[in-house]
């Protein structure tokens, strides 16, 4: 055993409590320790992923009480793959913001890095936990650190965005509590595996009501359509790396929660259709809203929402191919959208308004950044031979295999809209004259490394997708096999 899933939570918390003390010794510690912790988490998750290849899913028991009595953490191929992705992105976000301009002040830097680290931890916890209420706690950890990070920049309208986020988040947590309590009163347990096992005994109406409350609650974090009003504002106003972390880490965790609940806990067929319909609406509304945006990050935000809608559609197909496609989409979207947020924030660096027109002519002044943005744009449109193509292909062929011809057509038509708004920006970067009052800002070396490594992944996976498809396929198998999940956890008792 190389480590334990519980360290994903314990070590960052220890570090978080330690940082204020270490900061009194040497101020640089507040920047270095989170990086070390995130790096450790990445190493840990990679080694655990390798471990479970041969030894099977790890079910970690906490405080000595096996499920369903105690809380447990599950490191399965599915949650493990997501954990690896999240910790990797977390590390890159840390790297990108290591020398972030505002962080010269000690106090904000401390806050920023603690919140960032705990946001990643919370997301990882959401993915790993096997207990419903524990998931609620982790969702709150993620949300509160999200509020703090969103309003990090004092001069922008960031507080407004954070307040909207908070309002929605508060509603969501209330609804989630109601949903959890309905389940508890019916089944008397909070362990997800046991809930899943005993779900058939539950009264049908209670089942539906609890699912509705939980879906609405998690839908807020997962950016499903009518609940995602906060998302564009938050993405626009949060610091660039935080936007990347939001779309790459937090939302992924929320979608995970959504999927775990629908696929594993409940046995309602209609829930898949719900995912399909809501995902489709989210996708269409977000992509069409993105078309006429004037601010770069807001446009990226809508695109991000749209991509998550796509992932939900893929989950809603309900077959193994669909799950495979959805996981692939989540993976590629996390990587590509982070690349876009990273490079996009430098393209509109100096302006707080972040209008798209500020990128005019930046191709000449920031050639590498502009190139990386273009790469990301091409990849997210789904042009081969970049990474986005393979995931889109997987989605479409999964839909076609399930005979959803209309769905394929709609997705493709809306994808054209997506291509249009991305290419408009790319054209501006390279072929428009620079506006007189914009000053290009060269990326720091750390940011450059982060962006280049993301771009390398986009290219390498694009040319050789086999690097990740095996992993994703195992994860999809894992998710589809509900009986094994229940058995593995409850046998630990």
């Amino acid at each position, binding site marked *: 055993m190389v480590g334990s899933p519980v360290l994903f939570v314990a070590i960052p918390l220890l570090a978080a409590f330690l940082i204020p003390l270490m900061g009194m010794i040497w101020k640089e510690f507040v920047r270095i320790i989170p990086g070390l912790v995130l790096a450790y988490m990445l190493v840990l998750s990679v080694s655990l992923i390798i471990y479970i290849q041969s030894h099977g899913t790890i079910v970690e028991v906490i405080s000595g009480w096996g499920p369903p009595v105690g809380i447990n953490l599950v490191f399965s191929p599915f949650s493990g793959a997501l954990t690896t992705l999240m910790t990797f992105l977390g590390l890159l976000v840390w790297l990108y913001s290591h020398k972030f301009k505002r962080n010269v002040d000690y106090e904000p830097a401390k806050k920023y890095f603690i919140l960032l680290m705990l946001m990643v931890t919370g997301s990882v916890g959401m993915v790993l936990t096997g207990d419903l*209420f524990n998931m609620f*706690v982790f969702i*709150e950890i993620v*949300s*509160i650190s999200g*509020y*703090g990070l969103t*309003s990090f920049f*004092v001069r922008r*309208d960031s*507080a*407004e*965005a*954070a*307040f*909207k986020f*908070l*309002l929605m*988040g*508060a*509603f969501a*947590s*209330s609804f989630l*509590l*109601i949903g*959890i*309590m309905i389940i*508890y*009163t019916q089944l008397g347990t*909070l362990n997800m595996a046991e809930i899943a096992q005993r779900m058939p005994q539950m009264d049908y109406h209670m089942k539906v009501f609890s699912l509705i409350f939980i879906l609405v609650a998690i839908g807020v974090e997962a950016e499903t359509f009518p609940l995602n009003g906060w998302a*564009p*504002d938050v993405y*626009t*106003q949060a610091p660039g790396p935080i936007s990347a972390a939001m779309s790459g880490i937090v939302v992924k965790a929320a979608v995970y929660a959504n999927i775990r609940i629908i696929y594993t806990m409940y046995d309602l067929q209609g829930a898949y259709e719900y995912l399909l319909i809501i995902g489709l609406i989210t996708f269409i509304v977000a992509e069409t*809203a993105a078309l006429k*945006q004037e601010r770069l990050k807001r446009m990226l935000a809508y695109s991000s929402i749209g991509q998550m809608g796509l992932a939900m559609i893929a989950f809603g197909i309900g077959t193994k191919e669909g799950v495979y496609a959805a996981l692939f989409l989540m993976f590629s979207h996390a990587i590509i959208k982070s690349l876009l947020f990273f490079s996009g924030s430098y393209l509109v660096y100096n302006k707080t308004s972040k209008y798209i027109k500020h990128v005019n002519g930046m191709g000449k002044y920031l050639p590498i950044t502009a190139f990386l943005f273009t790469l990301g744009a091409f990849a997210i449109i789904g042009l081969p031979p970049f990474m986005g193509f393979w995931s889109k292909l997987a989605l479409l062929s999964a839909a076609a295999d399930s005979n959803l011809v209309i769905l394929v057509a709609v997705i493709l038509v809306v994808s054209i809209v997506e291509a249009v708004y991305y290419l408009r920006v790319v054209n501006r970067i390279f072929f428009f004259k620079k506006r007189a009052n914009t000053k290009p800002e060269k990326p720091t070396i750390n940011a450059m490394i982060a962006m280049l490594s993301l771009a390398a992944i986009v290219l390498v996976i694009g040319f050789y997708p086999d690097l990740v498809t095996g992993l994703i396929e195992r994860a999809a198998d894992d998710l589809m096999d509900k009986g094994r999940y229940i058995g593995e956890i409850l046998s630990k008792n």
Partner: protein
Amino acid sequence: MEKYLDILEIAIYGSAVALILIGLYGALTKKSLIKIVLGLSIMDSGIHLMMIALGYLKGGTAPIFSKGFENSADQMVDPIPQALVLTAIVIGFGVTAVALSLVIRLYRHHDTLRIDEIKNLKW
């Protein structure tokens, strides 16, 4: 006794739902940011009340094995909702604190507390 229990049921659940609805009403219609935050708190209270009520056992005692109650486990109310409520209260407190600090920031920035005037970010 049975009759009173029915009344009690309606009274407790009714007040929990009423709190939730009052909180929602406040959060959805009041213009002042402070009142919205208050609404959220009220809604939380309603939910906490509901949670506790759901764990109630007819004629039950507190789930504490103090002297004389060592063997009355069957008579104890469900302790789990109480534990959950504890967590939920703390989390609700944390959210409220952050919300209030955001309200302060917004007031600093916009010089107003009316939520319909704070719409710099839209579309």
